[in-house]
Structures are given as structure tokens and as C-alpha cells.
């Protein structure tokens, strides 16, 4: 319990020195990970059943070689592909905007620095230091958030592609 309180304290300190932009980074990171976990869950939990259903439907068909059969197979694959690829674009977008949010933090931090300079002059570097930490911490946080998502997002894409190819391979024309 004490450990949790200390952890919470350090997080609050971090948020305090980094400024409000960190909340936006946090939001983007949260959204990204929720979407990615949902995709992993879909790939491991939901999709195998769907795949089995499609394969059994296909195997039950008598006609698998006519133009009609080809089109129906394509449509089924496309449907499955769409389900697999749902929200992947959003995940990739989240990964892409994280460094942008960090950059926004840099700029707002620099605005704070120059505001302090306008009011107090350049005499006291300590006053400017808070603005500078507001500029650098969100940049770092944005980078870290993007890096944490980038690896898993690309792995996810590869898995989706592989899953689709396996499905295509499992629907032979008899």
C-alpha cells in the first residue's frame, strides 16, 4: 500500500513538472494500448472460431470452382479481412501522433519560458527551468509512448496479415 502511495506520488510529481500536455500523451497512450489489447484478444480469442466457421462453411459447399464460388470466397475473405483490420489504422495513427503531442509540449513549454522572460527578464534561470522541464519531459514522454507502441503495432500488423493468408490457404478449390 505504501509502495502504491509512493508510486502515485512520483507519478504526480512527473505530471506536475511535465505540464498538462502529459495528460494528452497519457490519453493517446491509453487509447493506443486499449485498441492493441482488443486486437490481440480478437486475434487469439475470437478470430479462430470465426475462421473455423468459414472453413466449415466452405467445406460444406458442393460447388467450389465456378465463378460464383470464386466470388463468394473472395467476399468471405474480404469480410474476415475487414474484421481483422478493424481499428488497425487508428492504432497506427495513435503511434504516429504521440511524438507530435510531445512536440506540442516542447512548444508550449518554450512559450512558458519566454513568458517568464517577458515578465521577469533573464536574470533568474531557476524561474525558466520549470518551463524548460515542461518543454523536455512531454517530448520524452511522447517518444517513449510512440516507441512502446511502434513495436507491438508492427507485430500486430504482421500477425493480421499472416492470419489472413492462413485463412486464404485454408479455403482450397476442390
Amino acid at each position, binding site marked *: 500500500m505504501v509502495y502504491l502511495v509512493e508510486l502515485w506520488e512520483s507519478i504526480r510529481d512527473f505530471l506536475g513538472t511535465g505540464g498538462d500536455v502529459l495528460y494528452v500523451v497519457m490519453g493517446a497512450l491509453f487509447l493506443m494500448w486499449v485498441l492493441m489489447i482488443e486486437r490481440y484478444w480478437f486475434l487469439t480469442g475470437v478470430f479462430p472460431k470465426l475462421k473455423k466457421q468459414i472453413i466449415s462453411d466452405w467445406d460444406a459447399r458442393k460447388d467450389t470452382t465456378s465463378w460464383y464460388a470464386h466470388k463468394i470466397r473472395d*467476399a468471405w475473405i474480404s*469480410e474476415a479481412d475487414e474484421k481483422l483490420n478493424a481499428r488497425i489504422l487508428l492504432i497506427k495513427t495513435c503511434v504516429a501522433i504521440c511524438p507530435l503531442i510531445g512536440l506540442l509540449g516542447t512548444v508550449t513549454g518554450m512559450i512558458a519560458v519566454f513568458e517568464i522572460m517577458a515578465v521577469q527578464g533573464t536574470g533568474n534561470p531557476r524561474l525558466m527551468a520549470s518551463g524548460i522541464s515542461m518543454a523536455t519531459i512531454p517530448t520524452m514522454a511522447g517518444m517513449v509512448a510512440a516507441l512502446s507502441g511502434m513495436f507491438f503495432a508492427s507485430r500486430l500488423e504482421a500477425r493480421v496479415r499472416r492470419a489472413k493468408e492462413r485463412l486464404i490457404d485454408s479455403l482450397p478449390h476442390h
Partner: protein
Amino acid sequence: MNKLVKSLLVAAAFSLSAGASSAYAQDEAKSLDQLLELVKENRAASQRINAQREAEFTSERADKQALLNDAKRQLANEKARGERLQAEFAENEIALANKEQELQNALGTLGEIVGVARGAASETIGRIATSIVSAQYPGREDVLETIAEAKEVPTIAELEELWLAWLTEMKESGKVVTFNSDVTLLDGSTENRDVTRIGVFNLISQGEYFNYNDAAEEIQPLGRQPEDYVLATVEAFEETETGYEGLYIDPARGQILNLATQKATLEERYHQGGTVGYVITVALIVGFLIAIYKFITLGIEGAKMRAQLKNTANPSDKNALGRILKVYQENKTADTENLELKLDEAILRETPRIDSGVNIIKILAAIAPLLGLLGTVVGMIGTFQSITLFGTGDPKIMAGDISMALVTTALGLIAALPLILVHAIVASRAKSIVHVLDEQAAGIVAAHAEKKE
């Protein structure tokens, strides 16, 4: 010319006098002998007169000598007196110095006390005059001023005043009091109000923070009140009758509040972005409007297509899938190759309408940070211009252009972030609809055909 006139006048004067003397001579002397007699008589007379005058002079000369001697004696006397007085002055000077030394000795440690009391009094004046307690009890520093300026040893009563002043300040600094006082408002008018003083830190009245201006001895409102969440506590604090209520106070006795008034509000900061900032805002608004439009139209289209999917037997003209199914119904008898070409043509007709606008959002999302960069460059140009004009001595001169540079950058990013997200959502919607048409339409047609058989 002048010279000529002068000589003429002189000549005239001579001739006149000559005329006069000849006339006189003509009166007295009838002949030359008589004239000679007359001249001789005159000479004798004038010799007599001269002798008389000589006698007078010699007698007067003796008198003057006596006067001179008198004056010389007087001078000698005065000189002697001057020397005597000078000696006396020097003696007195020494005596005075001795007496002062004696006085110093007699004062002893009391002299130091005078200094300490005077120093303490003048220090206290600084504290008390600027303290907001003086807003409630004006004129407290007047007594102290007499102590601070006095040359004599302060009396016990005066020292007690100093002591009392400190005690009052100490006691009042721990109190939260409401009192009635005149308040000078921002428009220059004065108003009688109930003012609450929180220790020596803040003055509040009617939901606003006030400052005590010690130079004018007036209670004045802040030029700009702090943020709303800070002000809200003031109102809540004033409304409480009993118990406790939280309140933001300024431990720097009003300095932080004064500095806070110089901070730019969000709106002011937005306007620092200038024209480029407004252009970015327009880009954001246009992007959002397109996104909302696409969101609605794609949502309606998707819903209609889902409904059509459940009822493939009766294709409707109102949605893309229905129109494609119609093409199939019209070309039922055609062979598969022909049918596929017809279907492809129908799909090709539908897709541009669905995709339209999505790319504009993407372009706007890409343009917004570029516009921000433009604002940065424009601002930096302004900065360097002011450096060439005024030098780098005063950072405040450059601050305006630098803030423009930074604010536009921030605005560009702020506009780009939601546009990118919105584009991702709209694009995936459009993509799924296009997929249904592109890859599944033929399948739906085929399934429909099979079901009939």
C-alpha cells in the same frame, strides 16, 4: 558732416564772445589809456584775491593733516581689536569641542540606544506602511516617523509607541477580519465596502482580490483578477458564516497576484499567433466540418447498405449496394464475364463519391503544422528585425515576435492532432464501405443467385 557742423558752432561761439568782450570794452573804456588803467586795476585786484586764497589753503592744509593722523590711529585700534577677537574665537572653538566630548562621555551607552531606536523605527515604518493592516488602521506610521527623524533621546512614551506598533502588527497578522473601508475602483471612483483582510496576506471584497497601495494609502482592485477557479474560492469564503472554507492566499503579500496579472490569458495567447494563427484555425474548422459531414453521410450510407444486405431480393436505388444489385438484376441473362464487367463499372461509379473529402482532411492535417512552421519563420524574421533595430539588450522587445513564432507552431500542432485522428476514423469507415462494394458486391450477387437456384 558732423565735424563740419561742430567746427562751425565753435567758430560761432568764439566770434560771439569776442563780440561781447569788445562791446564791454567799448562801455568802460573810451580810450586806450583808460583801458590800460583798467587792466592794471584788474591785475592788482586779482593778485589780492590770489594771495587771500593762498592763505586760506595753507591754513586748511594744517587741518587735514590732523584729520589724517586721527584716521590712522583709529585703524590701528581696530586691527588690534580684530586680533583679540580672533584669538577669542579660537579659544571658544576648543572649548566647544571639549564640551561636546564631555556630552558624548555623559551620554555613554544611551547614545547607542538612540541609534538603535531610530533604526528600529525607520525599519518598522517600512514594514508597517506597506502592510495591508494599514488599510484597516491608517496613519500608524506617523508616530514612528517622529522617532525616526528625532535628534534627541526618545522618550519612554515614544519607545512604547514603537513597541505597541510591533505588537499590533503581530496580533493583526494572525487575524481574519472584515471591516468597512473606502475602496478605489478601477474607473477611479471610490466606494464604501466591506473588505475582509486575511492576516497580512490578502484583501478580498465581493468575490474579488484587492491590493493595498501604500503610496496612495488606498485599497485598489487588481488590474486583472486571477483564474476563475481561484476566484471561486473567494466567493465561497465570503459566504461561509461558520466553520472552515478553503481560500487561495498569496504568501508574498500580493506580489504573486500582481505578477499573475501580467500573465497572458489563453485568449490573448491565441491572438498572439496573428494572421497565421487565424489561418490555422480556419484550416481546423474546415477540416472538422468536412469530417463531420463525411461522418454523417458515411454513417447513413453504411446503415442503408447493412439494411440492403439483409434484403438482397429487393434492391433499392437509394444506396450504393442497391444500385450494384440492380445492375445484376438487369444483366441476369448475360454471361459471367459480361456481368463482371458491368458490376465493375457500377462499383467504379460509386467509389469516388464515398472517398471524396477524406483526402482533403488528410491534406489539411498535413498543412496545419506547415502553417505553424510558416508562423515560426515569420515570427523569427520579426525577432531578427527588432534585434537589428534595438540590439539584444532587452529580451522583452523580442518576446512578442518569439511568442508569435511559438504560438503558431503550437496552434499548428493543436490543429493537426485532432485532424489526423479524425482522418483515421473517417478513412477507415470509407475504406470498409469501399471494401464492401469492391470485394464483396460480386460475392453478394453470387450468393443471391445461388439461393434462387
